[in-house]
């Protein structure tokens, strides 16, 4: 069953992934044009190329025409940018200099790519000792200043155009090799996974069909940056009079430097030409990398996204869908109709969590069960008021001990986090700052919320670490997080979360990264602490075993909605929602708390933005009927399913 589920689910996911990459690839350059800064920069580069090509006919004067009588003139109608010390027209000389500037930078980056790409491909593709030695060579080049290498090679080959191009090309080839190697390595590792399944692709095909296409975009960004850097080196070489012979920007700057006291304006035109050109290359590079990183922030920002303060988080937003009997309005924490949304440029925001009602009582352990992407972590973030930007609470409210905390100003929320509600997250090895001692971090809530002095906080930290089971706590508080094992690090994180004795602890996949034994120990610890501190615990997990073992009550979440809430025994014995039933069937051993198995059901959870308008589970539900997809399904009597009662009676869900 599980195996079949895998084979059914994965090819579908893969195809769509390929489609996405293909779409992204074709769209990249189009999207760069849409960024104003990059578009202007690109236009400037095109202008430069045109000037370089047509410098001869375009230039108002012969760049070498000397006329001593009109030397060192400022800008005039005749000489737009003035004249130099020999009376030569500066504008014409700048135009002539564009040729060397562009020829050298384009040529040298091409040389760098011709050497660097094959070298990087070789290292990344061969791996092993070839890669180890080859990469050391790349690292070694870091100790050699580019200008020094270029100078040494010019000493050997002279200052002809080709030798300067080659000299600067050598400077950059190692950086290109480094990038190529990294991309190749990443693709190759992916390839191993795919190759096992797809098979039949020969290495050269993999190289050309998989790796090179993925290399083009980052390489273009890097090359664009290098064009700027190469231009700086070229100008510097010409300024030092060891660059390509002929009219060059560096040479013009050098002439300006000689006349610094008499006619400083001479410095301005060539200086501006260099700075603007390098800037243009850099902006083009930024445009490409931004698009690659998927941070079309420029466009995201343009649509105002309401900040927490602007929202009026009153329950009125959530009126359409009613709370029902399963919602107990006397909990320590009440989540009332919470909806979290992600704004999209030019479109309606996408909901990530929809109309969620949930309450937790003092001392209760509530499980929030769902697959990755169900929105359960987003809900936890919403409760803490820590939604990652630009997502926001678009409706609903969070009530703590009868007082609304959603929409509180940041200053007041700080008094809630750590003091009233705390959280422990998934990865214990990254849960604490790696460059600070454990003591400093665990004592933060003590100092912030309880106002303890440094030494008081320190003593209390030792007690806390003992409480969570860190052995030899007194001698370990000055240790750094990496000195703790995963399980111990998670205990430390729990100690920090508990330091100011909050009323509610949210454990967001807090044990998922741990091995089974450690997981059981940490869960036991949470239960003990619940008892000793009469604290409510919200356990967010994808693991049925964890729920079965620890929770009093459980809420099942699917595609942004809570689909069923019940106490644990009833939920496991008589599931009332087809999704819950399917989860249980995929994990027959869950009752015996065999931890760690991920539920597998044919098909995949629809991602936010692709949720069906009716029941979110309809496309995977074996009991779906046309009525299920007609309109949103309400949460009634602890379950969100039109056919729940009928199916339960027929015994179809067991």
């Amino acid at each position, binding site marked *: 069953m599980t195996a079949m589920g895998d084979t059914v689910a994965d090819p579908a996911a893969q195809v769509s992934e390929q489609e996405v990459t293909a779409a992204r690839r074709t769209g990249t350059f189009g999207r760069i044009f849409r960024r104003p800064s990059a578009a202007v920069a690109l236009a400037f580069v095109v202008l430069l190329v045109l000037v370089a090509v047509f410098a001869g006919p375009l230039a108002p004067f012969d760049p070498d025409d000397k006329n001593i009588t009109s030397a060192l003139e400022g800008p005039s109608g005749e000489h737009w940018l003035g004249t130099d010390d020999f009376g030569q027209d500066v504008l014409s000389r700048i135009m002539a200099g564009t040729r060397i500037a562009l020829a050298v930078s384009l040529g040298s980056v091409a040389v760098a790519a011709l050497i660097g790409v094959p070298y990087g491909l070789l290292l990344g593709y061969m791996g092993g000792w070839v890669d180890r030695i080859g990469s050391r*060579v790349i*690292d*070694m080049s*870091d*100790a*050699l*200043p*580019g*200008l*020094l290498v270029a*100078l*040494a*090679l010019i*000493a*050997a*080959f002279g200052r002809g155009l080709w030798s300067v191009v080659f000299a600067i090309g050598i400077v950059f080839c190692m950086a290109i090799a480094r990038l190529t190697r990294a991309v190749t390595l990443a693709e190759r590792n992916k390839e191993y996974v795919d190759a096992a399944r797809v098979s039949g692709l020969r290495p050269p095909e993999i190289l050309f069909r998989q790796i090179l296409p993925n290399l083009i975009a980052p390489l273009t960004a890097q090359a664009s940056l290098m064009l700027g850097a190469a231009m700086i080196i070229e100008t*510097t070489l010409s*300024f*030092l009079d*060891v660059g390509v012979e002929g009219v060059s920007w560096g040479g013009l*700057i050098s002439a*300006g430097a000689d006349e*610094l006291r008499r006619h*400083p304006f001479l*410095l301005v035109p060539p*200086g501006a030409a260099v*700075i603007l050109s*390098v*800037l243009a290359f*850099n902006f083009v590079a*930024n445009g490409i990398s931004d698009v690659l990183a998927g941070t079309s*922030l420029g466009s995201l920002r343009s649509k105002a996204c309401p900040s927490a303060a602007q929202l009026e988080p009153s329950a009125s937003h959530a009126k359409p869908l009613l709370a029902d009997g399963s919602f107990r309005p006397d909990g320590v924490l009440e989540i009332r109709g919470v909806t979290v949304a992600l704004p999209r440029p030019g479109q309606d925001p996408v909901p990530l969590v929809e109309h969620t009602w949930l309450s937790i009582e003092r001392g209760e352990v509530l499980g929030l069960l769902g697959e990755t992407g169900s929105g359960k972590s987003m809900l936890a973030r919403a409760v*803490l008021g*820590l939604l990652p930007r630009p997502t926001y609470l678009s409706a609903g409210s969070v009530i703590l001990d009868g007082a609304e905390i959603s929409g509180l100003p*940041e200053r007041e929320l*700080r008094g*809630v*986090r*750590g003091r009233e*509600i*705390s*959280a*422990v*997250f998934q990865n214990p090895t*990254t*849960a*604490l*700052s*790696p*460059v*600070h001692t454990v003591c400093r*971090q665990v004592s*933060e809530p003590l100092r*912030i919320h309880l106002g303890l002095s440094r030494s008081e906080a320190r003593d209390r930290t030792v007690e806390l670490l003992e409480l969570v089971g860190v052995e030899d706590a007194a001698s370990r508080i000055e240790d*750094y997080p990496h000195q703790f094992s995963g399980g111990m690090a998670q205990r430390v994180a729990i100690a*920090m*979360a508990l*330091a*100011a004795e909050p009323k509610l602890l*949210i454990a967001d996949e807090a044990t998922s990264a741990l091995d089974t034994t450690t997981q059981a120990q940490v869960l036991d610890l949470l239960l003990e602490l619940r008892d000793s501190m009469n604290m409510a615990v919200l356990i967010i997990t994808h693991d049925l075993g964890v729920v079965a073992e620890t929770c009093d009550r459980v809420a099942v979440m699917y595609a942004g909605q809570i689909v069923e809430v019940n106490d644990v025994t009833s939920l496991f014995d008589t599931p009332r929602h087809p999704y819950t039933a399917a989860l249980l069937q995929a994990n027959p051993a869950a009752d015996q708390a065999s931890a760690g198995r991920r539920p597998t059901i044919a098909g995949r959870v629809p991602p936010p933005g692709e949720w069906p308008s009716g029941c979110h589970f309809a496309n995977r539900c074996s009991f779906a009927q046309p009525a299920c997809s007609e309109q949103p399904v309400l949460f009634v009597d602890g379950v969100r399913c039109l056919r729940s009662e009928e199916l339960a009676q027929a015994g179809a869900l067991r």
Partner: protein
Amino acid sequence: MLKLIAYRLLLAVPQLLAILVLSFLLTYLVPGSPAQALLRFGATPERIAEVEAELGLDSPIHERLAGYIGDAVQGDLGESYLSKRPVTDLIVERLPATLSMVIGGVTVSLILGMGMGILAGTRLDRPADRAVMAGTSIAVSVPQFLLGLFLLLLVSIELEWIPVVAYVRFTEDPLLWARGMLLPSLALGFAASGLIARQMRAGMAAAVHSDFGASLAAAGVSRRRFYFRYGIKNAMVPVLAATGLTLAILVGASFAVERVFSIPGVGHTLLHAVTSKDFPVVQGAVVVIAVLVIVLNILIDIGYALINPRIRVQ
């Protein structure tokens, strides 16, 4: 810590050997022979052979390489073709000025860069952040020597704040030395400060969005407290890595900046050697500069280990 230093020194040995070999091979890249390049026009074959023998270019390559490395390890980098003085002397006597500029440049890049990076990193995605980031784009686009010329023009010639004076050695008068280094350091460090600022900002942003950023926020640590108690120190890790990479750039750029400010650094010797095909001096400069960069990088690595406790010698 001692182990770390020893380990880094050990790593530097093959790096140095490789650079020695590369610099040795430089003369073999020369079309024709170095002697021909040196004599330029009108060289008869007899005269070339004579000069080659004189320069010791007639023995087999492996012997010469072994000799070159053996001498270099003892600090002997050969003799200048032209002045016949030891290369080591020619370069080392000019090293203090270059080193002064580079240290000044690194200091400027760190102060300016970290300042801008913290300004941007504590105001992520707000106007101040965008302004600083735009500023760094411009900073990295200005060639160092060009900025030097503009600074010289503005500060020394137009405003007459700092007079244009000859280079004063640190040992002569530290104050005058510092005054003389002010503008060159600024010229040299400004572009690198753009790179440092970006790393600082990126490091702070990464810390805010990290898992520990979330757990500390959930424990009640405010953004401000987080930035100053956790963000900056975490961001120093990438900042120091970037500083290591900017070192080589700074040293290279100093060759042009020293000309703007008439500072007697290695660049002058090197350029003279390049134009006059004085290969031993070019090779020697490559080796000495590489050693300088490697040593400075080791110092940075030590700072790195002080900040990042995870660094351990395997």
